[in-house]
């Protein structure tokens, strides 16, 4: 092979180019796919938290019953066969749902205690990737976490209403009016 033909020989350069380019393209495509999947699952989990918070907000016998209803709804939706493969294959994970009053975590300047509802700790290890030559997308698979909240407040329970009304009746009786306290009958309607 002459010197001129050797210098013009570009066989193989396309393969080398393809290897580098495909590595980068596949890497960034995987990242974009991961974000798309994450946003989709976040929407689904957001609905689960909303549905659970809605069950929690409705009045019941007592607060434990309200939590029980919220937990039932969460269990029902999070074990749906459509969603289960996504949160058991290692791409996403849901930690145990928290059903509580979260007012202490938020700014104390608020005058309305409405940060009551459901919190689902969510993790997306799918976003953690190691791409050859250029490193990883994060410090660890546990670095992609978020709390998915739904704060719909909580209606007073039957027992809370009864205690409130009995307390009010006792205070009215203590005002000193001239009537027989034993003749007072408490009549509760469908709310406080």
């Amino acid at each position, binding site marked *: 092979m002459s010197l001129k033909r050797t210098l013009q020989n570009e066989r193989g350069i396309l393969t080398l180019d393809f290897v580098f380019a495909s590595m980068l393209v596949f890497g960034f495509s995987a990242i974009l796919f991961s974000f798309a999947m994450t946003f989709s699952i976040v929407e689904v989990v957001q609905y689960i938290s909303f549905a659970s918070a809605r069950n929690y907000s409705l009045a019941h016998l007592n607060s434990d019953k309200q939590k029980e209803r919220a937990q039932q709804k969460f269990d029902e939706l999070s074990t749906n066969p459509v969603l289960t493969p996504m949160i058991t294959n290692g791409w996403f994970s849901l930690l145990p749902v928290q059903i509580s009053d979260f007012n202490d975590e938020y700014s104390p300047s608020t005058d309305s205690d409405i940060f009551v509802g459901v919190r689902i700790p969510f993790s997306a290890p799918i976003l953690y990737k190691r791409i050859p030559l250029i490193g990883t997308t*994060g*410090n660890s698979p546990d670095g*992609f976490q*978020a709390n*998915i*909240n739904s704060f719909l407040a909580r209606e007073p329970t039957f027992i809370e209403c009864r205690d409130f009304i009995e307390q009010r009746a006792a205070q009215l009786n203590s005002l000193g009016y001239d009537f027989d306290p034993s003749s007072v009958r408490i009549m509760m309607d469908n709310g406080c």
Partner: protein
Amino acid sequence: MRNPQSGQITVEAFLIVTLLFSTVFAGTRLIRDQQLLSRLVQGPWQHLAGMIENGYWGSPEVGRAKHPNHASRHGSPEGDRP
């Protein structure tokens, strides 16, 4: 008589490959050391987590004070008091 240019292509190719690999490895090391890929993905995630948690573009800790539930929903036909 010996050809004075014999082997020159080999030497030049070796130098070019050395230069190419040096540049590639230096570039990838820079990307790894600066954690550019991590900053590209995990950096924005903090803002995304804040939006997911509080509906506010910012870290979750900062966004808690900006949660929409803090907004006053008081309304009056006479308007708010000055």
